[in-house]
């Protein structure tokens, strides 16, 4: 079992000395390949900040972060963009589909940034839409879809470049309980297929669906930071640097 996420002493401080806000105060956290982890915590706990750093949308003030065996703390903006593109699939509470682009194009977009050819993009996007059960809506605009359908598109888009990690931020927050449950079913299905999922939520009932729960409060992990698996105790430095970071791995 290889490690997808490993952080040590992850710290994030906003603002200058006098008015500094310590959002994260040394997070030690790990997710193994194939795990389904729920990150829970009340609002203001720092889970959004952690989510942004884990998603390579923001850089930590201090500490180390290894994603799929590669140190990503201290990388440049362009390098982080490549990591987000190839290693991470995002699912947001508000879907964040591009309203002017068709469903198909929305799913194609990460592959476009990865530099895939037109035909290959189209085939894979259609296959992914098929997988989430809305291939018939490929040519529609997002506005023509229901909330649950939009979130399925978002999941298809997140899977586009076969990411190492699926990051879902309150994915059911904007859905009614029935469609929310359908989306969670979809996540469990993906988990069963071997995908690594990190689900961020404040709702304990949703977190209960995950294999493992990590609770964060006041910028610290208070429960379940590392899986209780003896093989995961390897040190971060033990990973060979030759491991290739790239598209589709």
């Amino acid at each position: 079992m290889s490690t997808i996420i490993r952080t040590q002493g992850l710290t994030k401080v906003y603002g200058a000395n006098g008015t500094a806000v310590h959002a994260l105060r040394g997070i030690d956290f790990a997710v193994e390949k194939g795990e389904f982890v729920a990150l829970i915590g009340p609002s203001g706990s720092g889970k959004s900040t952690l989510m942004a750093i884990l998603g390579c949308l923001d850089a930590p003030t201090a500490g180390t972060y290894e994603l799929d065996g590669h140190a990503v703390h201290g990388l440049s903006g362009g390098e982080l963009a490549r990591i987000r593109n190839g290693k991470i699939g995002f699912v947001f509470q508000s879907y964040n589909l591009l309203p002017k682009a068709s469903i198909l194009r929305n799913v194609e977009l990460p592959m476009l940034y990865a530099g895939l050819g037109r035909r290959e993009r189209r085939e894979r996007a259609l296959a992914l839409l098929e997988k989430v059960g809305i291939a018939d809506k490929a040519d529609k605009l997002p506005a023509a879809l229901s909330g649950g359908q939009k979130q399925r598109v978002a999941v298809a888009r997140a899977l586009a470049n076969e990411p190492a990690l699926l990051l879902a931020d309150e994915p059911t927050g904007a859905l009614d309980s029935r469609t929310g449950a359908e989306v969670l079913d979809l996540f469990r299905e993906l988990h069963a297929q071997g995908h690594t999922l990190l689900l961020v939520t404040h709702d304990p009932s949703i977190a209960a669906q995950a294999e493992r729960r990590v609770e964060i409060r006041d910028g610290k992990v208070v429960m379940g930071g590392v899986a209780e698996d003896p093989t995961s105790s390897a040190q971060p430095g033990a990973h060979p640097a030759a491991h290739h970071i790239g598209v589709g791995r």
Partner: protein
Amino acid sequence: MTSSGAFRERLLEAWMEIRENLGRASLQALGVLLGVASVLGGFSISDSQRQRAEQLYVRLGGLDKLNVQPRATVRDGQATALQQANLGLRDEDATDGDALRPDAIQGVSSQKNARSRVVSGFADQDRPVTGIGGDFIPANGYAVEAGRGFSASELEAGAPVAILGTEAAATFFPSGSPLGQVLRIGEVPVTVIGTFQERVFRFREDQRNIFRWRNRIIAVPANLVQRRMNGDAYRRVDRITFRIPDLKVMAAFSKQLQDVVTANHRLQDDFRLDDVQARIRRQNSQGDVYDLIFLLSGVLALVGGGIVNVNIQMASLKERVREVGVKMALGASGREIFKGFMTEALLLTALGALAGLVLGVGFSWTITRSLGVPLAMTPASFIWAYVMASLSGFLFALYPAWKASRLSPMEALRYE
């Protein structure tokens, strides 16, 4: 994926964005459109005027002429003091000049004028008479319509023969053919052997014929004027014209000729050289000033449009922060975002510029038509207008695109 594929994708994206925001995009394109139209229109109007002026010189007998004229002409046989002291312009100057570059000079003609009483069976008028030699007729854009031109022996001998312009023919011989008729010039009876084609040139359609006076010509051999009308012992002439088709030779020849004629004239500066090509260059350089003014007004229009575009782009960027954040989350780098915004702006500029070229053609056509000048447009005007629009589009797109590319992905995603 090839870079052309990536470019095509960006172009497609930009096109979708423009189509979705047609109102905003039209406003942005409008500034470019007006700028391009004004640059192109300005250039075309000045090109049209210039072309018309060149046509005039061609009709005057070509651009490849160097005229030599006395500074003060002899009128009615009365020489000025300067000419009395010197020899004046004379046939010798023509032969000496011809000897300088016989290889490059294609023709030499001289002109000797007189003013005299001209009498026919129908009219009796005081008229200028033009004594001509060499290839005067083609060199001045005349052509014989009826009858014939002067033979070499008639020119040499100063035979009493004449060719009339249309107005002169109509005045002195209002009925019947003038050919073979006799006209008395002063005391000399001359036979009409030909008539010239009518000369017409109007700068604008509604203006009068500026060649009207050329139809009044009464042409006789220069030697006839010299020998039997108002000649003198020095065989002075009123104009010598050299034809030099190779315009590169012209400037050098002009200097040599200046020296030779000055030497012939006892170092007196009593003549002037008139290089037709140089005259046109001077006139064209005046046209360049207008070009500059048109260019400047076009540039100002483009700058104005550019500033408006920056404002619109910055305002629209506020609406699109979220979109930029999503694209960044999906893996678009800042450079990718920058290129996307630039592509959109440049596509918009290109479309606006194309529309501007069309409008500019219409604009030029309308104005030149109202002036009555035929429309002339050069490829250079189109290229200039297009390049300037693209340049301004590029420069003014840089700032909004740079701003967008520098957004933090996390903050952009959370932007409401």
